[in-house]
């Protein structure tokens, strides 16, 4: 079985570093691909732009998506993921600082699988990443 890749869509390098750290802390050794904005995320998923050479047979097993992103924002990326045949079943978890209700409701109506508000306390964040990894990478049986 090929290694299950996690795609992390996050523009802030501190957040990237802390998220990677949280995965490592929870002994989740999957490959983590980091993209810096919505455009790069779509390039990675559909083999365009700087990812034109990528083997599209290898889809991420989990996408962690920030909402506030430069260029194309998280909800737009989510919309595209859900509308494309190749990616519509990939689990997407929104990771964001936002507690704003309308974001949550819109995220669910666009077909997000879960929604995690990043807590200030890093240990709580680490617990959330632990459960996330456990559920989406180990317990969940993918439809494909």
């Amino acid at each position, binding site marked *: 079985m090929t290694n299950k890749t996690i795609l992390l869509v996050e523009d*802030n390098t501190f*957040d990237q570093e*802390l998220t990677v750290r949280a995965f490592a802390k929870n002994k989740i050794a999957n490959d983590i691909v980091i993209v810096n904005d919505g455009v790069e995320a779509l390039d990675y998923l559909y083999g365009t732009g700087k990812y034109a050479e990528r083997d599209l047979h290898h889809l991420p097993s989990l996408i962690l998506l920030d909402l506030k992103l430069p260029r194309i924002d998280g909800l737009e990326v989510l919309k595209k993921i859900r509308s494309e045949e190749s990616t519509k079943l990939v689990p997407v978890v929104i990771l964001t*600082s936002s507690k*704003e209700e309308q974001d949550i409701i819109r995220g669910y109506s666009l077909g997000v699988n879960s929604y995690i508000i990043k807590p200030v*306390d*890093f240990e709580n*964040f680490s617990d959330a990443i632990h459960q996330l990894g456990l559920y989406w990478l180990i317990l969940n049986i993918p439809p494909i």
Partner: protein
Amino acid sequence: MLKFHTQKEVKEIEDTRLFLASIVDSTDDAIIRKTLEGIIISWNKAAENLYQYTAEEMIGETIDLLVPIERKQELFFIAEKLNKGECIKNFETIRIRKDGVGIDVSLIDSPIKNKLGSIIGSSTIVRDITRQKKIENELKRLNDELESRITERTAELENKIKELQSFSYSVSHDLRAPLRYIDGFSLALLEDYGDKLDETGINSLKKIRYSTQRMGLLIDDMLSLSHLSQSKFNSEEVNLSEMVKEITNELQKNEPQREAIFKIEDNISTLGDKSLLEIMFYNLLSNAWKFTSKNKKTEIKFGKLLDKEGGFIYFLTDNGAGFDMQYVNKLFIPFQRLHTEKEFPGTGIGLAIIQRIVSRHHGKIWAESSPKLSTTFYFRLNGDKV
């Protein structure tokens, strides 16, 4: 058959005629009699005052003289009705005075019949409604002005609300992120380099993390307070007694070792927003539970009283630490605390939340306390009449 009147009858008829004539002459309404063709046959004093024509000038003229050109067709409509024996009541129109000025009038036209019942003419009562019209127009103008001012103010308020919403959105997104980094990297430092730090260094890092997390809590509290004022209000019948019982059960379950008595009056219900009231009672009872945590035995009472106006006052009493009444006016200010964090933990948002929910129910809340004996929160919620 001819009928002859006695002298007495003649006098009575004459008296009645004089009486009616004096009414016609002294009234403020113009009274005009016309033939079927519209020729004026009587013209009282008020008609002279209103139209500025004397009786001599007008008797024998047609009523046509008083009607503005663009309203001449009214006369056909009036004549048609009168010919059918119908009256025209409170017909508002414009007539022209001798000096050419148009005046607002209200007309009552009624047919005059002879003894055999055939129509021989008509009488018109004309009331000057210029002043009334002026007042009406003024009222309409003021009303329009008021409405446009309300529209303007509403737009201003809506803008302010939008500004506040985007402010809280930005607080929620942008201020929390740096806090997460401070906390995350402080922990990274502790984990990766903890062995190179002495106890003071480690404690300093712990204090940084504690402060960061506390600021996170304060931001969350501030946001939830602003959400409370903006959320939709759904009114329904809410059983407060049941709500209080559920919350107190929950509190006791979390700390089963505490000895507590709950005296909750049954069947208290009110009209209100259930989820807001839940937040409110959760805060009120958590407070009572927290401030009695140092008691040997906790006692919490919930009930209602009748006020003089026949409304309900609800109360929640505990036997906890309470507060000094000289600080009572600081009680409901957000983040204002009357105890140190060490004595009783908290951010100081609970009572501000409670007050906001009470005010969204158009109610009022106040408190009385004798420290360490009894502390009571009293509150009213709108619509709780007997």
